[in-house]
Every structure is written in C-alpha cells, then in structure tokens.
C-alpha cells in the first residue's frame, strides 16, 4: 500500500530504477485502480446528480482517477477514498461549468444552479444517488439490451471490453451500444430522480427485469464458456443485494434475490464432468451451494414479511 512506502529513495535515472521500486510502484497503481473500481459507481452516481449527464459524469470520474494516480503514490491512499474522488470530480465539474458559463452563458440552460460553490461538498444521500443511477440506466426509453449494457457499465463498473466478452459481441459493437444508450437518455432529457408512487413501482420493475435478464444471460452459459459469462450471474446478484439495501421496503426486490440465490445454488450440480446438463431430480444435492440456499430462503422470508 502506498501508505507504507519505505524511506525516501535516492533519485536515479529511470534506466537504473531498481526492480524493487518498479514492482512497488506497480503494486501502488494496482491498489489505486482497485479502489477506483470499487468507488466508481458511487462517483458516477453523485456526479450524474450534480451534472445531469451520465456521459460527463463518467468523464469526470476518469479525471478523478488520473488525479488519484498522480497524488496517492505520494500522499498515500486517503482514509475515505470515495469522498476524495467525489470531491476531486466535483471540483472538475465546477471548473467545467465555469468555462461553459464564460464561453456562452449556457449554465442556466443546463439547469445548473449558478451557485456551484455551495454544491461542492459531498453530501449524504449517497444511497439515493445510487438508486437514481439504477433508475436512469434501466429507463424504459432504452431497449432491454441497452439497459443491461448501461447498468453493467455505470452501476456494475464493468469495462466495455468485459461487457462485450460477456455478451459475445465485439468491443466496438458494445461501445456503440453504450454510446447510443447515453445519447438516447440525453435526447429524451431523462431526469435524475427516484420516482414516487405508481411511477416508482413501474420503474422498479424495469430495474428488476434488467437484473434478471443479466442473471439469465450468465445462467444459460455452460461450463467451458468464457469465465465472463458466469460472472454475469455474480454481478446480477451483487447488484440485487445492493438494491435490497437501497429499496428495503419493496418485497419484489427480495423476491428476485431469493430467486437468483436459489437458482444459483444449483449451478455446481447442473452439469456433469463433460458439461452436459443434469436434470433437477438427478442432481446430487450435496453439490448445491448451501450458503446461497440459506441466503435465498432468508430473502424469501424478507419478501413475505415486507
């Protein structure tokens, strides 16, 4: 970790940098990139609320990573890396709007409060931001394919290359799908919000549908396929678990989690050594994943109690 780097090293011409320090700096970079990957969705969510544009939010998040890669090897990884990254990205957003304002006074057009300084501090309500991001990326204005791709990109934090591999399409095609989806959102002026009432119920069912589509895409993959495909099951389950905390009073969410955990618990028993499918009644039950069954039943109980 960067925080533990040793005594200062004498400066040497790059040709003579020891293997040790190269390895250390690589490890630091990997650690920073890992932190960024873990925090990315929260940064994009906060910045989307701030800028009203997922595209700009992603760009600013990327800039924040570059700032972290420049600063953290010296200062160490901060205690609250997520807050650091969001603050850094917000400063850049403010600079961006100032330039835009000076250029053509468009700030009001963008719907941004002129008093941008007041918005510079990270606030609570991070959970609502994440939920808002899920609602945006699963908006009904998008096709089901586009919703899945955008959700994996923005909320899951997967790279375009990983999503492309999981869906067995070229990276260029997936990049196009994501760009088009973002354009559709901006053309339709989709607001960044957590809707209420019947609207919320409808929009939530769209989110659940997307998660189940992603889960099924991975579940239908057989052994021997690229590891990214089964990974889709894990990612759908992870996003479902996240959603359960963001919308704990919606029984449907717990219901979907129960379905995914219990279905997934059978994955290890579902195929034989050659990868041929084994029917449910012929499966060896000891191969079922009992931790997932336990989690599935707990989610079911929650769904019933909600």
């Amino acid at each position, binding site marked *: 970790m960067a925080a533990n780097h040793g005594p200062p090293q004498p400066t040497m011409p790059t040709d003579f940098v020891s293997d040790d320090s190269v390895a250390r700096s690589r490890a630091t970079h990997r650690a920073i990139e890992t932190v960024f990957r*873990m925090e990315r969705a929260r940064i994009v969510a906060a910045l989307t609320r701030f800028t009203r544009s997922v595209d700009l939010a992603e760009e600013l998040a990327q800039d924040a990573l570059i700032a972290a890669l420049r600063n953290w090897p010296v200062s160490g990884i901060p205690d609250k890396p997520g807050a650091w990254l969001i603050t850094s990205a917000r400063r850049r957003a403010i600079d961006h709007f100032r330039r835009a304002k000076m250029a053509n006074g468009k700030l009001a057009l963008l719907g941004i409060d002129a008093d941008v300084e007041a918005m510079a501090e990270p606030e609570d309500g991070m959970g609502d931001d994440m939920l808002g991001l899920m609602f945006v990326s699963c908006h009904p204005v998008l096709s089901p394919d586009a919703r899945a791709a955008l959700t994996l990109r923005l909320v899951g934090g997967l790279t375009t290359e990983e999503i492309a591999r999981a869906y067995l399409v070229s990276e260029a095609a997936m990049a196009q799908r994501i760009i088009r989806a973002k354009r559709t959102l901006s053309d339709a002026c989709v607001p960044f919000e957590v809707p209420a009432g019947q609207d919320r119920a409808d929009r939530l069912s769209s989110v659940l549908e997307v998660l189940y589509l992603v889960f099924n895409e991975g579940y239908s993959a057989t052994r021997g396929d690229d590891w990214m495909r089964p*990974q889709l099951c894990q990612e759908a*389950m*992870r996003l479902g*678990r*996240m959603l359960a905390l963001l919308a704990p009073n919606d029984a449907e969410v717990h219901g979907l989690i129960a379905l995914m955990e219990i279905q997934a618990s059978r994955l290890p028993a579902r195929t034989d*050594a050659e990868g041929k499918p084994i029917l449910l009644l012929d499966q060896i039950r000891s*191969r*079922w994943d009992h931790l997932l069954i336990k*989690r599935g039943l707990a989610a079911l109980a929650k769904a019933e109690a909600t």
Partner: protein
Amino acid sequence: MRFMFVIKASKDSEAGVMPPAEMISAMADYHGELAKAGVLLDGSGLQPSSKGWRITWSGGKKTITDGPFAETKELIAGYTIIQVKTREEAMEWANRFPNPQIENGQIEIRQMFDLEDFEPSEGIDRFREMGIAQDRP
C-alpha cells in the same frame, strides 16, 4: 472469488467479554459498507473455546478434548465471507476492517477453494461430491 476474513481470538474474546458498544457499532458500519457494495455473503462471531471441543486423530486413535484451549492466538473468534472480482479488491476490503479486539487484534485473510480452479481429476470429482468449495456463480 470468495475470501474468508478469519478473526483471531484474544484474551478478552476467550474470557467471554462482550465487545463494547463502540466496537459493535464500528463492525456494523464496516459490514454495512460490505453489504452496500453487494459483496457480503456471511459472517458471525464465535463463542469462546470453553464452550467448544476438539476431536483429534492421532496414531489411528480418535480423542475428544473439551475446551477451553490454551493457545489463544491460534484460536478464532469469528469470520466474515465476501465475494469479490479480484484479489486486490479483497485486500482493499481487508484493509478497511476495524480492529476486532479490545486490545491486540488480528485477522487472517484466506481465499476459499473453488474446484473450478483445478484440472479435472478423479480426486477433484470426489471433493465436488462433498459439496465443498463452490465459488460459481
């Protein structure tokens, strides 16, 4: 990939001293973060070894010994299981773990087995039938 954070026992945990409210609160915050990130699978504290027992196989003989056991530092007091995409992510989560003991705490991080990691063999098939080590999905 799944990782288990093994929380080592301490004098206090072995004496059955319940953790103070601040520690429980810090643990709840941390596990809340794991849950919010969707990576928390399971976790629990363990009662002192005085309430447990050991079974030892030695020289073809099996013996049962009641707790408590003396080697406190080798005992465990709890565990947390997470599922993440990379080893680096597990390292980062582990770094954020609060000190689990009143005084000197220690956690040990172990990756859980995934049979898919092995080349197929007759032995692995038998392990599989024991229903252990399932990381997929």
